[in-house]
């Protein structure tokens, strides 16, 4: 009897915790935003025109609020250095091209979002997206739908998965392409 009651309560509680408006505040509580983080990534880029995915792997590191170094090792060697002001493309230590984000609104928005996603800057993301999702223990999945028209031009939806740190991102682009990135061997 007691067991049945207990499971009933559980059954009632479970969907509740899933439904009760998943908030940025909750994410803020369960996740941490380390000042420094590096790790390994696997990126899978699905191109609708080819109906195929381009897979690449590499390492990344970030300094919160300052820069993200994104180094693709396979199948090509390329290094992106993103700062809030610019995106620099380097190969073999040589600068190939540099983009000033301030001069281009689209790049600016996109790099801001990328920064915010990677560094768990939920306050920034709340300015661009509506949030929904579930939280089970320390595991969470979130779906971000852009509220900002400029963002909608580039990204239609963002899926995030993680615990105290972000483990997986899927960026759904306008036009059917999507980029899925998984992180592992993270170290602070």
């Amino acid at each position, binding site marked *: 009897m007691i067991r049945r009651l207990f499971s009933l309560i559980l059954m009632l509680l479970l969907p509740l915790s899933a439904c009760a408006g998943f908030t940025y505040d909750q994410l803020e509580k369960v996740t941490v935003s380390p000042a420094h983080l590096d790790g390994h990534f696997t*990126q899978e*880029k699905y*191109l609708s*025109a*080819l109906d*195929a995915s*381009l897979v*690449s792997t590499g390492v990344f590191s970030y300094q919160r609020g300052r820069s993200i170094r*994104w180094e*693709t090792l396979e199948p*090509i060697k*390329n290094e*992106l250095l*993103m700062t809030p*002001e610019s*995106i620099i*493309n380097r*190969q073999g230590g040589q600068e*190939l*091209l540099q*983009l000033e*984000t*301030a*001069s*281009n*609104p*689209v*790049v*600016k*928005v*996109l*790099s801001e979002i*990328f920064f915010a996603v990677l560094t768990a800057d939920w306050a920034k993301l709340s*300015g661009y997206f509506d949030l929904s999702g579930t939280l089970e223990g320390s595991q969470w999945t979130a779906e971000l739908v852009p*509220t*900002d*028209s*400029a963002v*909608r*031009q*580039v990204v239609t939806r963002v899926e995030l998965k993680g615990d105290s740190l972000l483990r997986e991102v899927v*960026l759904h*682009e*306008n*036009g059917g*392409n999507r*980029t899925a*990135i998984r992180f592992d061997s993270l170290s602070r």
Partner: protein
Amino acid sequence: MNSRPLSLKTAAAGWLLFVVAVTVLALRQGPSFDSSIMSLLPESTQQPLVQRAADLMAERFSKRLILLLSGVEELRLRGAVTRLSGSLAALPDVSRVIWRLEESEVEQYRTELYSYRYAVIDEGIRALLLAGDFQQVQQRALFQLYSPLSVGGGSIVEDPFGLFTELTLNRRSEFNVQVSDSLLKVSGTEQPTYMLMVELAADPFSPALQKRVLGAVEAEQAVLTDVGIKVDMSGMLLHAAAGAQQASGEISTIGLGSLLGIVVVMWLTFRQLSSLLLMLVPVVVGSITAAAITLLVFERVHLVTFAFGAGLVGVSIDYALHYLCEHRRSSSDGILVKIMPGLLLGLFSSVMAYAALALAPFPGLRQMATFSVVGLSAAWLTVVLWLPLLARGGPQQPLALAAHLDRLRAGFPFAEGNPLLVGGLLVSLLFSVYTLWSSKSLDDIRLLQTSPVDLLKQEQSVQRALGVSSSSQFFLIRGDSLEQCLQREERLTARLEGLKAAGMLEGYQALSQVLPSLRRQAENSALVQQLYEQQLPPYLAMLNVSDHLLSDAYLSLARTEGRRLTPEIWLQQRGSDSWKDLIVEQSEWSAATLVRLTGTIGPETRQHLIALSDSDSAAVYIDQVQNISELMGSYRGQIVNWVVVAYLCVMLVLGVRYKKQIWRILLPPLLASVVTLALLVTLEQGVNLFHLMALILVLGIGLDMGIFLMETRQAPYTWLAVSLSSYTSLLAFGLLALSDTPVLHHFGLTVLIGLTLVWLLTPIMRNKTKEKTLHG
């Protein structure tokens, strides 16, 4: 004898009718003032095309008002932007407010260029292709494909090398602004900041427009300040409003001050209300008629014209003074006959001097000349036609002040037969000439900058936030067609890029950056075809792409490769909106465009730009500020010539009447002018055009003084009259010397020194033998 008063009455009535009619007409047109220094300066010396280009540049700046709203709370800020833009857009003076960008519009800007992606390509890509570095273009495309930030996400079939993505990424927007939730947010600022850009429908110099637009902003500002939102603005409108406010404030204070001073002294002199009113009537009629006719002839009246005109009060009061002073001694019938020669000569000398100004091809001077000639003539006519009717009756009591002044004058030494005094005057003259000889002039237009410091600071902070730096310098490109202009621009910009790379030039805006010439588009298209031939198969093979996709890509190239962005198509596009004003002229036979330079341009860069212009006959480098400063200098020289010519004419006429005695009239104002100039050079580090224009006034009043005194053989009443008129002018202008508006200050100081000297020198040159005493 009976017919004369009757015809006088008819003439007086006719004159009244004319004054009323002109005033009514001017009032119906409505007053419109101008405070821009630029509008005082000549247009005709520049080629019409250059002038048009300069006007276009100026208009772009003058019709634009930029507002930046910043605050802590984003939501409130966005609400404020929406509200403010709403209230501004509702004004009739605003043609549009740019404050939001719909997503559909952003998309539209992109798609309208898409079909031309093979012909209109990014400069960086073009450089690589030209250098034959096709490999790198392919590499860049590959990186882009693997980048987590796949911006633009172009189709692998339609644009495998991401040419269009590169183009859209590198197209700079004019301002440091990003679209944030449809609003324009300034990037890189400490606090959230949003931008609003107002395009005015009319001239920013219209006082009514200034009042409505700034009124609407101020009304919002009052509310916004309470919630911690700051509004910063930049635009010609603000400078125009501040300039107009400052100048009109000063002119009205000074005008009121001088009027009060005049009234008090006249009251002390005449101690009679009727005399006082009689004296003011010609002055008022003169001023009103002058203002009305100037308004009707010229579209706008410049504030400097009014300042200059205010000084005419002192001159025009002369005529009434002489009449009234004479009235003290003779019956009203005989006065006119008696003083007519003096009045006529006085009017003639002044009108000659001012009319000479109108001959100079100088809009500002023409306006002042018109104002002065009309004002003086109207005052003169009023004295001659109305005063005989208004001031009737026999001779009146002598004036006590005349006797006082006469005694004061008796104390002045005579230059005649006084070698010591003559020697002293000669030495001061030589010393003055020496000072002038070694002086330099102040023709830099920037010294006449009148805007308040905090306004300039605000302007700078707005420009810094938006990442723009305006410059008045540009290249004018001429050709037979727009296509030719664009080709010539491309030749020029290649060399400008060199200066940019050397760090000498901050940047430039050229039409060919967004609309390449058709020749260049064909070149680009050929280069892209080469790129496809060399790099597409290995590139797509690397991505494991099927063969039919490869052929699809070729097909897509073949289909659109021939498309050209012609000027006609481009002009229809929305993206051309902010670039259109780079086209100065476009007709069947000729075209002209301008390449705008940005940032501050140092002397070294300037030399390079001039050299560029010299070596390329189709591109002319134009520096408006420098041009205007040079013009100020050349007109400074020309004005001296005009004045000399005018006074030679006056001298001829005076010579006929006064023969050898003419030096008594000419020397005091001339000597005073030279000494005044020398003093000004010492006090103000140099003289400019506006000092000289004030000197014309000194000469005019000085000559009048001499003529009247000569005509009445130094009569005490005349001495009283000319002293009073000097005093009134000194009041009107002495106060102007305190002005913060540089032009008015220059004016005031010159007249202050000059008139004082004339008043002191004239009695010294008086005739020793023929002197009349009050009771003699």
